[in-house]
């Protein structure tokens, strides 16, 4: 009896909690999204109207574009840089632990703290970046004015916090690559750069898939950085130039008390995450074949 039942008892807490705080909210979100559901008012079944509204709504589509734009702008350089840093950390080096701790130090700062500090650094009038640009003769940039400038600024916040974390994960995987592969390649006369792209990167494929997956979920649900960048407002700039889907959901929910719309946007975000995650998987999965 103990042998048969206890494994299920041991794993049950997770599944019970997931049922209450995971599966049920997901299903309930779907149900809410099919209603015209305001905070105080009556709820009325409206079918797919909320989805129809969102998919033809310029503002929502803008938030989708912003989210995808910032995701690409943040993730691609972040993971490439992480690979290079990991490769450097994998060399014979005095003070390895200190370097590893050093690249991880941004982890101690919360997203809110990062966003506050970077928002000041990207200030138009007194920001450090504009001051540095001024030193080399570039006019001050209003980092919040255009989509591209704000996406760039927000992406650097994401990268600052996560590049080192990904580098450490890559480093762990690099250390597990059999050295024989490199020795053989060296005998064949392959340069270390060639070895990096032709041995290291393909060998890291499973871990790269893992980090891309994590970054996809994190990047597509981006919230705190753009929120703090816009002084804590949900609208992401005057024309929503850096409003993300997550901000749109919270705005619909919090400011407009439109639960139905927020729920529909949440499901669309979930769908976007699944599609992008699959697309990324297909791209990353080609690493070995293409080389």
């Amino acid at each position, binding site marked *: 009896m103990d042998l048969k039942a*206890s494994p299920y008892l*041991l*794993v049950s807490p997770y599944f019970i909690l*997931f049922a209450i*705080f*995971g599966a*049920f909210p997901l299903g*309930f979100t779907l149900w*809410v999204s099919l209603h015209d559901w305001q905070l105080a008012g009556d709820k009325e079944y409206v079918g797919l109207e909320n989805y129809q509204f969102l998919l033809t709504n310029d503002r929502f589509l803008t938030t989708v574009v912003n989210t995808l734009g910032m995701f690409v702008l943040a993730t691609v350089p972040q993971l490439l840089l992480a690979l290079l*840093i990991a490769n450097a*950390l994998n060399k*014979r*080096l005095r003070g390895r632990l200190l370097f590893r*701790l*050093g*690249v991880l*130090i*941004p*982890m*101690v*700062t*919360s997203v*809110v703290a*990062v966003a*506050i*500090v970077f928002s*000041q*650094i990207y*200030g138009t009038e007194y920001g*450090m970046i504009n001051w540095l640009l001024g030193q080399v003769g570039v006019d001050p940039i209003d980092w919040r004015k255009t989509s591209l400038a704000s996406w760039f600024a927000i992406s650097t916040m994401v990268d*600052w916090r996560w590049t*080192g974390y990904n580098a*450490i994960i890559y480093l762990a*995987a690099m*250390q*597990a690559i059999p*050295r024989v592969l*490199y020795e*053989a390649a060296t*005998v064949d006369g*392959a340069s*270390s750069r060639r*070895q990096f792209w*032709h*041995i290291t990167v393909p060998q890291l494929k499973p871990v790269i898939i*893992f*980090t891309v997956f994590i970054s996809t979920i994190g990047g597509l*649900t981006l*919230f*705190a950085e753009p929120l703090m960048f816009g002084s*804590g407002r949900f609208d992401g700039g005057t024309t929503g130039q850096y409003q993300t889907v*997550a901000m749109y*959901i919270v705005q619909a*929910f919090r400011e407009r008390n439109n639960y139905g719309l927020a*729920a529909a946007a*949440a499901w669309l*975000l*979930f769908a976007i995450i699944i599609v992008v*995650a699959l697309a990324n998987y297909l791209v990353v999965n080609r690493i070995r074949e293409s*080389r």
Partner: protein
Amino acid sequence: MSTVASRSRATTPTEPPNQGRAGRSWGRRRRSGAGVHIWDATALTRIALGATLILSFFPLYWMIVVASRDASAATTFPPPITPGSNLADNVSTALNDDASNLVKGLVNSFIVSGAVAFSVVVISTLAGFAFAKLRFRGSTALLAVILLTMAVPLQQIGIVPLYIMMVELDWVNTLQAVILPFLVNGFGIFLMRQYTIQAVPDELVEAARIDGASTLRIYWNIVLPAVRPGIAVLGLLTFMQNWNEFLWPLIALSPDNPTVQVAIQQLTTGNYSADYSMIFTGTLLSIVPLTVIFIAFGKQIVGGIMEGGVKA
């Protein structure tokens, strides 16, 4: 283009899977290897790593600079680059600011992060033990389900029903509202499963069985002592992660009973919204606990991330 990689693979058909200590022990063999030089750090590598470290530390340093000066620090050109002498004053003002409730936020975050870390450790060691050492029908499928559930960003997707739930339970603005949803943590189960596989020999479990020990007794007397290092890592990582949670606490709590992240967000909109030295002081205070943890347990944290990333 594929010659190098494929030829190398072909030469090592009997290479064992990349497990365990291989990465650490090869260093001793390195000197005799053919390609010694490619493992030496070049000057360029050192410079690049040095620059990375400077970039990693600079925003933190800048936080200290502004937090230790007065309100004008963030509106001066050229920007000041050395710390001032106002830190103690700023700290006491920030801690006493009624609008942001920073002290309450710090205390709440300790309670919330501690409770979540403790519960996640309990849930994960139990399930990790079951998945690592017990045979039961459907275990592979259940493990796969956990992996899938990890892909659901509950905070964002489930925000509407979670909030309605908290309203129905009358839990809005209570700490359990921001503790319970975060107990769903599949990563911990994977990490503890891995640790248990490595740290608990099968023979030990079997011997205890023959002696008539129950599953729970085996968990308590054999598994728990053996996986203590893993527990420390999981506890620390979970604590850090929850210390930094923002979206759901922002929704579920009100400014009078915040977590630390909500409190420093309040600083940017409250009495001192125009005073960067105060905002940065609050921000600095909010990262002190994690910095202490990081300095004390940095090595374990690095190890835990390396373990989790490769094996999870």
